């Protein structure tokens, strides 16, 4: 009898990729008593998820093909809602602002977060305290942070407005200008979420064994080369997770724009809220936009896993 190396099976399993293979796999799952118990235990959670998450999404998609006014009979509209959506100028504005916000804020957060993570990766006195305090902005509830910053940018009492005026950076009304508000929103979001990125990246960095760096130093690698050739590739799984979370969150931003901008700043989710909650005639538009957010988020996640994920397994 050949000795089998631990973890490697002596015989290859029948492939599960074929339909026949899948049926066999399913049957073996349900005939086994232990596996069946596992399914029973998991079923309450699955049912709740189906009710709370899957059903509303499917219902929203169904509604998006109808012409809906709340409390009035609905008529079938086919893809008319989507056509109306994509020619709507408010939607274009929302799309542009959301895209700029996502790209710039996530970009800032990755770069600054990486820098902070690198700094916190070293051993220095007070490192524990430093790590704890960097997390402080992220711990604030988003709405509270938005109001706090809004007050800071208010014209009569805001410290930031005062600084902007005296330093001649910007003398207009910050809270009244959409472009100024977008810049402010990006900065506030970066302030708030960079700690989160930094911590995720730090966790990824801590897993890298020290001897890899020693080997690199022996080979004569400079600090920059160490970063690009050693740290960055090894931190990629954590970076992927952090990027995915942040990009999806930034794409769906609502609370920061709504609470800080008070209707002056548009994002796709703010557009959804206006259409579905405030307006009574634009419900179908808002609903179609909501389905758009859902599908585009899936697309973004798919993109991340496809393009950036496979390389980690090489």
């Amino acid at each position: 009898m050949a000795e089998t190396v631990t973890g490697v099976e002596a015989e290859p399993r029948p492939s599960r990729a074929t339909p026949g293979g899948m049926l066999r796999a399913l049957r073996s799952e349900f005939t086994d008593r232990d596996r069946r118990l596992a399914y029973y235990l998991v079923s309450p959670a699955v049912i709740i998820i189906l009710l709370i998450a899957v059903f509303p999404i499917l219902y929203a998609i169904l509604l998006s093909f109808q012409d809906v006014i709340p409390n009035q009979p609905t008529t079938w509209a086919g893809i008319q809602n989507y056509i109306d959506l994509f020619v709507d100028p408010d939607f274009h504005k929302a799309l542009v602002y959301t895209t700029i916000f996502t790209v710039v804020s996530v970009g800032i957060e990755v770069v600054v977060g990486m820098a902070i993570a690198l700094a916190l990766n070293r051993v220095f006195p007070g490192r524990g305290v430093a790590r704890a305090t960097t997390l402080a902005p992220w711990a604030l509830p988003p709405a509270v942070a938005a109001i706090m910053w809004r007050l800071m940018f208010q014209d009569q009492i805001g410290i930031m407005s005062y600084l902007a005026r005296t330093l001649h950076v910007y003398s207009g009304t910050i809270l009244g200008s959409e472009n100024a508000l977008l810049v402010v929103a990006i900065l506030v979001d970066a302030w708030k979420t960079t700690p989160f990125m930094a911590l995720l990246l730090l966790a990824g960095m801590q897993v890298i064994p020290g001897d890899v760096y020693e080997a690199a130093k022996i080979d004569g690698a400079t600090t920059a080369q160490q970063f690009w050739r050693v740290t960055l590739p090894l931190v990629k799984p954590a970076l992927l997770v952090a990027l995915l979370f942040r990009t999806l969150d930034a794409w769906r931003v609502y609370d920061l724009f709504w609470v800080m901008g008070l209707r002056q700043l548009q994002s796709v989710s703010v557009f959804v809220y206006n259409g579905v909650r405030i307006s009574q005639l634009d419900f179908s538009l808002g609903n179609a936009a909501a389905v758009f957010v859902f599908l585009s988020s899936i697309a973004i996640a798919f993109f991340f896993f496809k393009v950036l994920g496979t390389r980690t397994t090489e």
Partner: protein
Amino acid sequence: MKRRDFLKLSGAGIAGAALLPACGGFSGGESGSSGQLIFSHGPEESGALESLIKQFNEENKGKIEVQWRQMPADTGTYFDQLRTQFDAGGGDIDVISGDVIWPVQFGFSGYIEDLSDRFTEDMQADFLPGPIEANVYQGKIYGVPWFTDAGMLYYRKDLLEKSGFKSPPATYDELFSMAKKVQSDSGTKFGFVYQGAKYEGGVCNGCEYIWGAGGLIQDQEDPNKIVIDSPEAATGLETERSTVEDGITPEAIITYTEPESDTAFRNGDAVFMRNWPYVYGIVLGGDAKIKTDQVGVAPLPTSGSGDIGYSTLGGWNLFINAASDLKDQAWEFVKFMASPEAAKLRALKGAYLPPLKALYEDAEIAKAAPVVPLAKQLADQIRPRPPSPFYSDMSLEMQEIFNTALKGEVSPDEAVSGLQGTLQGIIDKGTQ
């Protein structure tokens, strides 16, 4: 085997227990324990509301207890919260205090109770006609007026006198020159503040400028016809913009709602302010750096070819939730809150305009709150915003355009011609 069975049973038990509260919640919303009414209203600084609720609870001890659930100060946010609850099946608020622009929208969707058999025409005759009309939709009355509201011009009597002005301005031209002189004489920070942010209050202000210049939003004969596209309306919006261009109003006015503007005035930082009567109540209560003898109230000025300064009809009304289980008790509370005694207390304590005709003859109220006799004087000059089941959509359009015009990003002519098309479209959808 035993552990497995235990796991199975506990799993089933936890799942069952988790589903139970969901079943209870789907029954649509129960109001507290029997006899406990929930009343919703925004924040209230003068203390008049608190004393009224306390009085009612004492008089009805053991039978009904009223709980005040505080809602957001911004009427738009409050409206959204209510609509969320209504859309979800009614919610648990029994008596709702609502803005004057809500009865038609809520009545259209069947969210509030038709009060036609409780609030008879005899009872209605005691109230001012404007607020009553705002509560009527398709011949049925859905709310009882609680207090009415109208935009007014507040001014610093003492500062005006110091600069040699005996009476408040009648036109915006006069206001501009008075504000500039007083600002240079007394060093006041702002000449004129009002509400210019992109929200419902901005619509009220914009309408007043349009009307004060002789423009109209709806045709007087046919309310379903929008006539905002006129040179007079454009002049009105131009006047609003020139407050900023002439420098008497800060550019930040585009972010000002009621709290920002009343803070500036009650800190003594503004010479003129356009606001609702509640600010007088705050000054009465002593919660301001200025005193009542420094404050005067006057009708809003006119501009261009307008000869009457119109005020937007505001005001809050009492509705009963159509999904409430305690409608009779709710009606008792509504009757109490709308009674002459309650209205008088609110007028004396908070300067709230009573909706009852008789109280405008009351000398005590007239002395304590000059906003009340002023409102009586203005009776024919108070106009409602266009009523429509889809007013929310009209408001969204007007909010956007008025704010953009105030920023100077669109000319007044473009603003009114754009609004003409969009508003007419919404009214047409509402009358189909």
